[in-house]
C-alpha cells in the first residue's frame, strides 16, 4: 500500500515551471496536457486539467461495467483510455486519503448539471481505490434496476419483495471480474440455504456464493443480498477497505416504472436489489467510504432541469442520505477546455480543417458552453 502523508510529487510538470520531462519515455515528448502519472494516488493540483492514461488491461479488470458508452467507444477508436484529472476528483481523493476509517463511513454525493463529468469523476475515484487495494462495490447505474425490467419474480426469502434475476446476474458477473482476489479471501459467517437442496456452509469463500448466484439465476438477487451483507459485516475488522460507488443513487428513492402482475405500481422498497443497496448506503458501518452520483438523465418522473440533491433525491432520499458531503461538478474551466481541445487535435479526432483555427476553437467553446458532453458531441462529426 502506498503511504502519501503530505508527500508532494516532485516530478509534476506545471506549465509555470520549466522542469524537463525526466520520466517521459524516449519515444516522443507528450504534449503539455498529458501526464505520465498513471497512479491516481499521486495526482495533485499540478496535474489538474491534464489527462492521464489507464493501461487497457487495467481498464478491463477494474471497469467491466461503469464507464459511459461514449467513453468506451473513444477508448476503442484511440486505442487508449485517457481520463482528465479535475478539481472535484482531486477534492474527493484528498478527503479519502485523510479519512479516519475507525469512524462510520462518510457519504459523498457528486451533483451537477447534465454532462459535466460526474460519472467520469466516479470512475477516477474507483480507479484510485482499486489501485489502493480496496474492495470496490460499483453499481454502474441504479436506474437500470427500477425501469425496463422484463422479469420480476416474487422473492422466496420475503413474500412482499420482488426479485430481478437478470439484473442481479449481470451485476454479479461484473463484480466477479473486478474483485477476484477478495472473493477468495472473504469467508461467509453463516450457513445459507438456496432453495431446497443447495446450501453454502459457514466459512466457505464468498466466490462460491457468487458462483451459486450465477449458476442458479433464480436466486441471483438473494446471492447478491448475501454478498452485500457479508461484506458490510466484515468491513470494519477485516484487512480490506470497502468503497461503495453508486451511479444514479436517486433511483433508490422515488418511483419505478415497473408493475406487478395485477398492474399495480411497484415502489422501490419492494425490490430486493434496491432494498439491499439502501442498507449498504446507510452509514452504520465502518472501514470505508460511500461515493454516489446523482443523475437526472436516467431518472424517472423528474423534470429535466433538476440537478440539485434536494430536487433529485426528494424528501425521502435526502433524509436517508443525510448527512452527506456534497461535491459539485461543473463545466470545463478554460484550462481544461484547452487541454481537451488539444487532446482531440493530437489524436486527429478533429479532422475539419477549420477546427484547427482560432475561429473554430472559439466557435466550439461557444457552442458547447464548455460542457464536456456537448463538446464531445460537437467534435464527433467535425
Amino acid at each position, binding site marked *: 500500500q502506498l503511504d502519501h502523508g503530505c508527500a508532494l510529487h516532485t516530478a509534476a510538470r506545471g506549465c509555470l515551471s520549466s522542469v524537463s520531462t525526466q520520466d517521459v519515455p524516449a519515444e516522443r515528448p507528450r504534449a503539455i496536457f498529458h501526464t505520465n502519472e498513471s497512479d491516481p494516488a499521486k495526482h495533485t493540483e499540478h496535474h489538474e486539467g491534464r489527462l492521464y492514461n489507464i493501461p487497457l488491461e487495467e481498464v478491463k479488470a477494474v471497469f467491466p461495467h461503469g464507464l459511459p458508452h461514449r467513453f468506451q467507444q473513444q477508448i476503442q477508436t484511440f486505442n487508449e483510455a485517457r481520463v482528465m484529472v479535475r478539481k472535484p476528483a482531486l477534492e474527493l481523493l484528498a478527503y479519502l486519503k485523510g479519512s479516519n476509517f475507525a469512524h462510520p463511513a462518510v457519504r459523498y454525493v457528486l451533483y451537477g448539471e447534465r454532462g459535466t463529468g460526474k460519472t467520469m469523476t466516479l470512475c477516477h475515484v474507483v480507479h484510485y481505490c482499486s489501485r489502493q487495494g480496496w474492495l470496490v462495490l460499483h453499481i454502474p447505474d441504479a436506474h437500470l434496476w427500477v425501469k425496463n425490467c422484463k422479469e420480476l419474480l416474487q422473492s422466496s426469502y420475503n413474500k412482499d419483495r420482488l426479485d430481478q434475476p437478470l439484473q442481479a446476474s449481470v451485476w454479479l458477473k461484473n463484480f466477479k471480474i473486478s474483485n477476484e482476489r477478495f472473493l477468495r479471501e472473504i469467508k461467509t459467517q453463516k450457513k445459507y440455504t438456496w432453495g431446497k437442496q443447495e446450501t453454502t456452509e459457514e466459512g466457505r469463500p464468498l466466490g462460491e456464493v457468487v458462483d451459486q448466484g450465477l449458476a442458479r439465476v433464480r436466486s441471483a438477487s438473494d446471492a447478491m443480498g448475501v454478498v452485500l451483507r457479508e461484506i458490510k459485516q466484515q468491513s470494519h475488522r477485516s484487512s480490506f477497505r470497502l468503497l461503495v460507488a453508486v451511479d444514479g443513487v436517486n433511483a433508490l428513492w422515488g418511483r419505478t416504472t415497473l408493475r406487478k402482475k395485477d398492474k399495480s405500481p411497484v415502489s422501490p422498497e419492494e425490490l430486493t436489489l434496491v432494498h439491499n443497496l439502501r442498507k449498504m448506503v446507510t452509514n452504520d458501518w465502518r472501514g470505508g467510504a460511500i461515493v454516489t452520483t446523482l443523475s437526472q438523465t436516467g431518472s424517472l418522473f423528474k423534470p429535466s432541469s433538476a440537478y440539485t440533491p434536494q430536487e433529485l433525491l426528494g424528501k425521502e432520499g435526502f433524509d436517508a442520505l443525510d448527512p452527506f458531503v456534497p461535491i459539485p461538478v461543473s463545466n470545463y474551466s478554460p484550462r481544461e477546455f484547452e487541454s481537451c481541445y488539444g487532446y482531440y487535435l493530437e489524436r*486527429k479526432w478533429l479532422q*475539419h480543417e477549420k477546427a484547427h483555427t482560432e*475561429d473554430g476553437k472559439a*466557435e466550439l467553446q461557444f457552442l458547447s458552453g464548455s460542457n464536456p458532453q456537448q463538446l464531445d458531441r460537437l467534435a464527433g*462529426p467535425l
Partner: protein
Amino acid sequence: MAAPSAAGLSRRLRAWLPRMMPVRWSRYDPSYLEPEVNKELYQKPSEKLAEEEMEQMELKAVRPIKAAPPTLSSSVFSDPMISKFTNMMMKNGNKVLARSLMSQTLEAIKRKQLEKYHKAPENEKETIECNPYIIFHQALKNCQPIIGVSNITKGGKTYQVPVPLTDNRKRFLAMKWLITECRENKHRRTMMPEKLSQELLQAFNNEGPIIKKKHVLHKMAEANRAYAHFRWW
C-alpha cells in the same frame, strides 16, 4: 432568390395590380438586400475593399435587408453540400432527425477510418484519408454521372436519348441514388448512419452499388448513341 439587378433597383415599387398577389415567388420588394454572412468581409478595413464592395456597404446603410433563412449559417463548419444532402434525407420536415443522422454518419466514417489508420503500418498511414468531409465530397463526385438519358417520343415510339446534364442535376442524381440505395437495400435492423457510412466509403474507393448504377447509365447512353440527334436542345 437572385438579387435584383441594378436596372431593377432603379425601378420603384412593383406596380400594384388588383387581385394578383404573387404567391410562389418572392414577396419582397426589389429594394431589399440579401443578408451577408461572411465575417471576413466586415473585418476587412475599408481601404482594401474593391469598388463594388464599397458600393454594397454604402447601400446597406439605407436599404432594408431580407430575413435570413434558417439554412444560412455563419458557422465556419457549415457546408452547403452537407446541408443539401441533409435536406434530401429529411422526411416530413424532421430536420432535427436528419441532421443528427448526418452527424452520426460523419462520426461513423471518421471512427472507421481512424481505426484503420492506427492499425496501419507507418508507410501506409498517409494514404488513409480520415477527414469525413473530404471523403463525402469525393464520394459524391465519384457518383456523379457525366451523361444522362431522357425519354423523347417520336413517331409514336419513346426512345432513351443521351443528353448532357447540368451540374445541379448531376449532384442531385448522385445524392438521390445514395439515399435511395441506403433506404432500400439494407437489413431491417441496420441503422441509417451505419449503412450510409459504408456506402460513402465504397463510393470513395470507386466501388459499390451506386458506382455500378452510374456505369449502367453511361452504358445505356453509349448504347443509344444513334438517337442522339433526336435531341433538339
